[in-house]
């Protein structure tokens, strides 16, 4: 499938930018950023109606990124889409940059909809947008990417309850289900399962897919509900694309040094 090949290529470019920008920054969150590269590729290059040349276009479909720590994959994708020049990615986390360690909307980077970092807040904002779109009868969707560990925050479930209550079929939540968080496996730290049932019981239509497979992601988006909010449990591998660090949660919040960067970039070319 030609489209899939294109999206895989975009995901590879995004991963490359993530690695380069994290190395330049000397710190940041590599694992989750790499794990979400395919989701971001599908969203920005296939699913979402948006105009990089007009970031404040009122009828755009918005991505609310609730897990601010994967800012590098958002920035890499925005640059890849043409919101700003790729060179700026190397300013990540440096004094005066628009690419804050966690997205800060008041730093003026085009394409950033919401400041995020403190967890559990994105879905509520997405619910507000989706409610207004429903109110104004706008035919567009709002996407919200959450982490799995983040679902331990109670405010997520307040938002989930309200989306179910208002039957917001124009909202698509994506949970980055990589099963790990800083202190270890989610099921050891504070178990989330049965996760799909939890969302269903809050009135959501739940789909599961391999979040590192662009064709499965496309299929999932195509099967959203027209009556209920849709949740995609995207099973991803933290660090996906670099076999050496896949599923290794010590890479949650680490940046590659020069040598690691060269090795990781080499692996990207080899594996895809």
């Amino acid at each position, binding site marked *: 499938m030609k489209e899939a090949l294109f999206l895989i290529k975009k995901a590879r470019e995004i991963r490359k930018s993530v690695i380069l920008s994290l190395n330049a920054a000397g710190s940041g969150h590599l694992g989750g950023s790499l794990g979400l590269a395919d989701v971001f590729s599908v969203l920005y290059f296939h699913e979402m109606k948006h105009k990089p040349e007009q970031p404040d276009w*009122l009828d755009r479909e*918005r991505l*609310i990124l609730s897990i601010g720590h994967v800012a590098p994959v958002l920035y890499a994708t925005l640059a890849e889409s043409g919101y700003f020049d790729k060179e700026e990615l190397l300013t990540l986390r440096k004094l005066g940059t628009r690419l804050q360690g966690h997205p*800060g*909307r*008041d730093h003026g980077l085009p394409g950033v*909809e*919401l*400041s*995020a*970092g*403190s967890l*559990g*807040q*994105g*879905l*509520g*904002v*997405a*619910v*507000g*947008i*989706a*409610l*207004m*779109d429903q*109110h*104004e009868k706008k035919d567009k969707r*709002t996407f919200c990417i959450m982490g799995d560990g983040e679902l331990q925050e*109670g*405010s997520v479930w*307040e*938002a989930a*309850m*309200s989306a179910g*209550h208002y039957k917001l079929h124009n909202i698509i939540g994506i949970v980055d289900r990589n099963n790990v968080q800083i202190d270890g496996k989610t099921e050891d730290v504070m178990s989330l399962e049965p996760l799909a049932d939890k969302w269903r019981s809050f009135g959501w239509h739940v789909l599961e897919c391999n979040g590192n497979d662009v064709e499965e992601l496309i299929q999932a988006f195509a099967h959203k509900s027209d009556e209920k909010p849709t949740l995609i449990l995207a099973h991803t591998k933290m660090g996906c694309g670099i076999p050496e660090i896949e599923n290794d949660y010590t890479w949650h919040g680490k940046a590659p040094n020069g040598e690691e960067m060269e090795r990781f970039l080499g692996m990207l070319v080899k594996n895809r």
Partner: protein
Amino acid sequence: MKQFEVRQRKDTRSGFGDALYELGKESDKVVALCADLTGSLKMDAFKKEFPDRFFQTGIAEANMIGMAAGMATAGLIPFTGTFANFSTGRVYDQIRQSVAYSEKNVKICASHSGLTLGEDGATHQVLEDIAMMRAMPNMTVINTCDYTQTFLATKAIANFNGPVYLRFGRPAVPDFSPQNFEIGKGVLLNEGNDVCIIATGHLVWEALQAAEQLEQKGYSAEVINIHTIKPLDEDIILKSAAKCRCVVTAEEHELNGGLGEAVASLLGRKLPLPLEMIGVNDSFGESGKPMELLEKYGLGASNILEATLRAVERRTA
């Protein structure tokens, strides 16, 4: 010399509800959210007239702030309504990150602030909210003193682009504010020469009472109502303080982090003068009738009067 007229007693929260209803008629961009306290916030009229622009969030304040941020993102002007405690302390991080740091045009409207909430007691009597909101970058903080001012402030913040914390109360109080309101501009209510009283919220009326009593002792007090605590109207304060040479502040809030500290900071930097501060001294509240509580915690007119006499004495010492 009095610069105001007293009208019938009314509660500040009705000023909010009535203005919100008018705003609803004026602009279809105005939407309202409430966390299960529609009647207490006097939002019923808006809800009834504009059911498709009123959103019940249930008892889920964090989500209410998030939803409001989303609605602002979609270009609307959301007003959230709940008690002051649940409007600030419970949702501080949501306001900080999703509203203030995200530059969302959300109006956080809070009733039942301070001790005058009364019988419900300390769990609901937030006395730290001004301090929290004042410390937050990008946040405008307004504490209104009567029905008219709350009505006018509610309308003014709809036309102001940026996050606002609007704080008002529960009981019916005398209504005396002038019919004009400007965000960030203090109001001169009584002209005088011997002491400058700077008051906000329900204590403005107490300050006016104190000024009257002070007159019988042969002193004249200037009374200035600071409704916008941030940004602070430095000019009106400095001008009056320079004339009177001593200052008293009065607020229904903790001394820590409130209006008094804002004025102290201003005077310390620009015009050091004797200063007395009326407020709650590092304590939670308790159950009781509003006026009983003001008295017990040293916030009544008699306490303000004593503070002015102390200030005058320090000035001449």
